[in-house]
């Protein structure tokens, strides 16, 4: 384990005293995203938790060049950075778009699909905390079924989580991966790999959110781990169409002992009104998906 840690770039690009919540899953993940990408990177992001983390003028908490943009336009902003840098022959810089699930699954989907379809040479990162958390935990299409949010405060979210990964897979990308705040080394490795690949790369990070999900900040890593242990989040990568499990998910796929989803759900306040039927549906969805991926890994 220590060998894995010590290969990690020790530079901290995210400076202490930033504005993210206590125990923020994004904060944890972003540390490693930046460590992997290093200095020759420009990030662009919309109004979201990350904007707040980057900080308010005239000081920023992140020592990487960064460009804010409007909520719907993250991937378009990245497309413009790539085009402008190409026109100026600055092809040594990695352009990274990074948005939450709101700016990716919902309002940002058009620009993302457009940029990916054009084969734009950039990395698109979606940090998925399963709701519009920056504005106070309203539901997004990434919110799981059965979750309470401020816009599904009584009946819970009725629809299952939008399968953004399949949508992005349909764009024939050279590289697509899932990662988790709870597994920073797996995340770091994938971002190091992605940086070297050309074309549109999609990275979705499963990011637990203490205030949004209703658990104590100290449990961010534990909740993130349980998501993987139960198969709700699967750590994998698809490189040139070839699927492979990674990290803890790989071990689970080999040993076949994932936990029932109740272990994950019962620890979060947002699921306290989840019905038995919704819980069964969630378990079915997880199992079906898990089996599909198992078959893909074999083939």
């Amino acid at each position, binding site marked *: *384990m*220590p060998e894995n*840690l*010590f290969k990690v770039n020790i530079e*901290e690009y*995210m*400076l*202490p*005293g*930033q*504005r*993210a919540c*206590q*125990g*923020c*899953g994004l*904060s*944890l993940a972003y*540390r490693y995203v930046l460590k992997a990408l290093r200095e020759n990177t420009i990030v662009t992001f919309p109004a979201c938790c990350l904007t707040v983390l*980057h*900080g*308010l*003028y*005239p*000081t*920023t*908490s*992140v*020592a990487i060049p960064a460009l804010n943009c409007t909520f719907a336009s993250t991937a378009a902003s990245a497309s413009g950075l790539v085009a402008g840098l190409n026109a100026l022959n600055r092809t040594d810089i990695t352009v990274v778009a990074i948005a939450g699930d709101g700016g990716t699954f919902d309002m940002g989907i058009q620009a993302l699909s457009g940029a990916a379809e054009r084969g734009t040479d950039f990395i698109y990162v979606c940090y998925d905390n399963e709701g519009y958390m920056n504005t106070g935990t309203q539901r997004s299409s990434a919110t799981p079924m059965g979750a309470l949010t401020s816009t599904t405060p009584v009946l819970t979210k009725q629809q299952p989580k939008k399968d953004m990964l399949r949508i992005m897979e349909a764009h024939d990308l050279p590289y697509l991966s899932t990662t988790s705040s709870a597994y*920073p*080394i797996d995340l770091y490795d994938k971002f190091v790999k992605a940086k070297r690949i050309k074309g549109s790369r999609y990275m979705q990070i499963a990011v637990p959110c203490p205030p949004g999900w209703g658990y*104590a*900040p*100290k*449990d*961010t*890593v*534990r909740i993130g781990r349980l998501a993987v242990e139960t198969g709700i989040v699967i750590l994998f990568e698809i490189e040139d169409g070839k699927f492979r499990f990674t990290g803890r998910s790989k071990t689970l796929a080999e040993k076949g002992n994932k936990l029932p989803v109740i272990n994950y759900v019962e620890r979060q306040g947002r699921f306290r009104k989840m019905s038995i039927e919704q819980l069964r549906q969630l378990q079915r969805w997880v199992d079906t998906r898990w089996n599909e991926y198992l078959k893909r890994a074999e083939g």
Partner: protein
Amino acid sequence: MATPAVGEAGKTGDWRDMRPVCDHSKCIPSIKKKAACFLCWLYCPEGVIKATIPLEIDLEYCKGCGICAEECPGKAITMVNEGEKNG
């Protein structure tokens, strides 16, 4: 435009109601006297833990989330109420 600096949100140590206290006699790197474990450094969302022997936590900016205490395999870190003595 905005330039990078520490403390954009002020001294975020002010946010805490509990702070981490490390019992170095239980801290695995301290025990082994070499680089080992350091999961607290790995999992700190703020990056305010220094992977040194003995462990150093920057209390000016530590928000007191408690992840380090939760994840420490040696149970070396405990969260103590601010205003109370260590341990």
